[in-house]
């Protein structure tokens, strides 16, 4: 399986990428105006107290030295201590990563489950009423901002119908899933329209393609032509679009987690930014960046699996 050999050597290329990411996040975080020590101690703190705190967290050292400590800690599996939560950033992230992961996973699954059939219906009725309706609805789906959509869903399902929880995150799996329905739906409504548009275009093209004509000329009914030839060929370009969107989605969970009060990474990031909690901002940004790299790697593997022509 030489086509999959890149799975072994590609991670080597991640090392310089991750190094670059660490430098950039490190610098960007320090460009945020404001002094974390002052935020921590409040406006009436004495200069001595501030100096002490700054020395305690290494904030008085030169930037290069701070970066060096950061790298050394990283090698030990630590990302420094959170100023606000007083625990190691990596441990803090570990407690917050699950809701975000679950949200992204549910959203992606739900989006694909919506997008594929919707695109198929639109493509197979190309130019007819069903296609027009789907196009109008999906344009609206892209147009609505997620925070507004989330609020509307809360009002409808949680307040009026009272069948789903308003906000927060549960303890058991079923509780957690119930809490994730509305946030994932909010994300999926916009994500699935993006995917459906791309899929529909690829499918319309596929239905007109020579491959489809040849299959019809062999006497294949439309259902087989679509399922066996058009669909597999149209998935290839959509996988990369999905990967790009998941990368964007990980950053985008900030809004949805805030609206639904999900205790995830997005929420953590917002609080960390407001309190100038350098270490946390830096850690969350690193995790987000790594996730994006990883997702693109997974997308490459899926592309290779779907398209035998691709060599990486």
């Amino acid at each position, binding site marked *: 399986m030489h086509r999959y*050999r890149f799975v072994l*050597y590609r991670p080597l290329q991640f090392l310089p990428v991750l190094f670059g990411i660490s430098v950039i996040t490190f610098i960007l975080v320090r460009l945020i105006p404001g002094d974390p020590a002052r935020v921590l101690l409040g406006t009436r703190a004495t200069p001595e107290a501030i100096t002490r705190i700054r020395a305690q967290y290494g904030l008085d050292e030169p930037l290069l030295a701070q970066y060096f400590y950061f790298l050394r800690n990283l090698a030990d599996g630590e990302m420094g201590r959170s100023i606000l939560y007083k625990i190691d950033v990596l441990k803090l992230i570990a407690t917050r990563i699950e809701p975000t992961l679950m949200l992204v996973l549910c959203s992606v699954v739900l989006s694909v489950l919506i997008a594929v059939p919707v695109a198929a219906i639109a493509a197979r009725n190309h130019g007819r009423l069903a296609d027009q309706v789907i196009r109008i609805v999906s344009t609206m789906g892209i147009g609505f901002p997620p925070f507004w959509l989330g609020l509307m869903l809360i009002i409808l399902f949680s307040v009026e119908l009272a069948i789903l929880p308003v906000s927060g995150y549960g303890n058991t799996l079923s509780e957690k899933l119930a809490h994730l329905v509305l946030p994932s739906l909010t994300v999926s409504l916009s994500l699935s329209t993006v995917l459906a548009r791309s899929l529909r275009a690829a499918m319309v093209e596929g239905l007109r*393609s*020579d*491959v489809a*004509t*040849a*299959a*019809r*000329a*062999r*006497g*294949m*009914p439309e259902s*087989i032509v679509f399922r*066996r*030839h058009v669909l*597999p*060929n149209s998935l*290839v370009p959509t996988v990369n679009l999905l990967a790009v969107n998941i990368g964007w989605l990980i950053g985008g969970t900030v809004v949805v987690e805030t609206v639904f009060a999900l205790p995830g990474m997005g929420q953590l990031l917002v609080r960390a930014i407001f309190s100038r909690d350098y270490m946390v901002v830096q850690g969350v940004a690193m995790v987000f960046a790594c996730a994006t790299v990883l997702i693109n790697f997974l997308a490459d593997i899926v592309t290779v699996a*779907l*398209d*035998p*022509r691709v*060599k*990486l």
Partner: protein
Amino acid sequence: MIAALLKITDLTVVHDGDGGERTLLDAVSLDLAPGEVLGLVGESGSGKSLLCRSLVRLLPSSRLRISGGSITLSGRELTTAPEAEMLAVRGGEIGMIFQNPSSHLDPVMRIGDQITEGIRFHQRLDARAARAAAVDILAQVGFPNPARHYDSYPHEFSGGMRQRAMIGAALSSNPRILIADEPTTALDVTIQAQILRLLMDIRAKRGLSVILVTHDLGIVAQVCDRIAVMRQGRLVEVGEKRGLLAAPAHAYTRSLIASHPSLPEEDMPEKTGKRQAPGAVPLVDIEKLHVRFATGGLFRRGAVDAVKEVTLRVMPGETVGLVGESGSGKSTLARAVLGLTPVSSGTIRFDGADIASGRAVLARLRRQTAMVFQDPYNALNPHLTVGKMLAEVLRVQGKIETAQIPARCGELLDLVGLGRAFLDRKPRTMSGGQCQRAGIARALAVDPKLIIADECVAALDVTIQAQIVELFRELVERMSLTLIFIAHDLAIVRNLCQRVVVMHRGAIVEEGRSEEVFSRPKHAYTAALIAAVPHIDPDKPLLAPSKMATAQADGVAN
């Protein structure tokens, strides 16, 4: 007369457009006997392909519809048959293969599975039996290792092998009729000969009736029993091939036969180009040229020698034909001459100066050479009118005064035989031949010493091809032009060029005066190339021995 297997009577197909109905097939009547090979010839747009699609009711657009006439298959009416019945007819009774196997085979499905698909659907075999049947078919169409190639994907094969796979898929459900729509147009001559041979073998074994659509009368003369000539949606003439080729009744058939570039033994037209004075400086002087392309990625390096050890001199005023199969390095050589491809070793001198010696030489080279491309549509900017396109070249070249540009544009169009009305036309409103003339006018606008024409007639219909070749002949005569004419069509090169250079796998295997090379080829490869050209005379048979065994040589990649 045996009862017809397929009987087409007054078949009419119309296009329902915004401006009303347009008739695309006009009352076509045609019979096909069992075991017969019918050649359907005509130019692009004559309705050949549409007729074939209509037979299985797979019209290329929903705006097209069969408005009249009937198609009967063994007495069964097809124009009104329910769709479910047509599914059984398609593939099961009438199989179809197409011009471009690369686009008609599913790139993400294994070759074998594309054959099995039909077998399972039509014959209701289980997976195991279907696989066995498909492996058997792959062997029949000449796959050297069918059990292994079953699991290969289309991109792993050469064009010829892909066409074999498509034939296999079309035959999978044992149809009685095979419609072959330009099945060899995209292939090299030697591969074309193999595919035609394969089709004839299969036809003999299975008693298949074949409708062979082609624009090449040579193919028809070689493999068909009867010929039907189409033009503008009408059937102009149909008859037994010898009779029709010897005494065509219709003027259009006569012009088709006249423009077929066969390889005549005598009365060759006077060769264009001037005789050389001894001691003249060659315009292009290529010495020991190597062009090597790196392949593979960071971890697996490799290299392909696209051009190997090529030494070639082209004298001013000469017309040199560069022939060879696809992948033989013709285009790479041409690109290297124009300084468009980095050279690995060797030298190219243009008018005495080494083109690698500096930007000044390269700039001079590009002011004195021009290229004409294969695809006339894609080589022209769709947003520019012909006039603007020519004016742009003239302005950039700066060889004439700005005030004289409009007049010069008109002259250029006169030169290539396009009226001045074309100054305001855009490419999409023009035919392929007109676009190619505009492309040649653009090349002439440079006022070049050298024109390199890369397969510039390959995409054109035969009668248009003949016109463009004639145009080149005139231009070379009238202006002091040197022409390097790249083509895979030997007959055209023989008609046009003084000297011919045969390339094979990146190297020149033979060169010499056209008459000599074509009448007494020294190299076996040249001889094979010449033998593979289908002759319009049915009594000059193509490839007597079966070439099934050469399927391996045809190139199974990986």
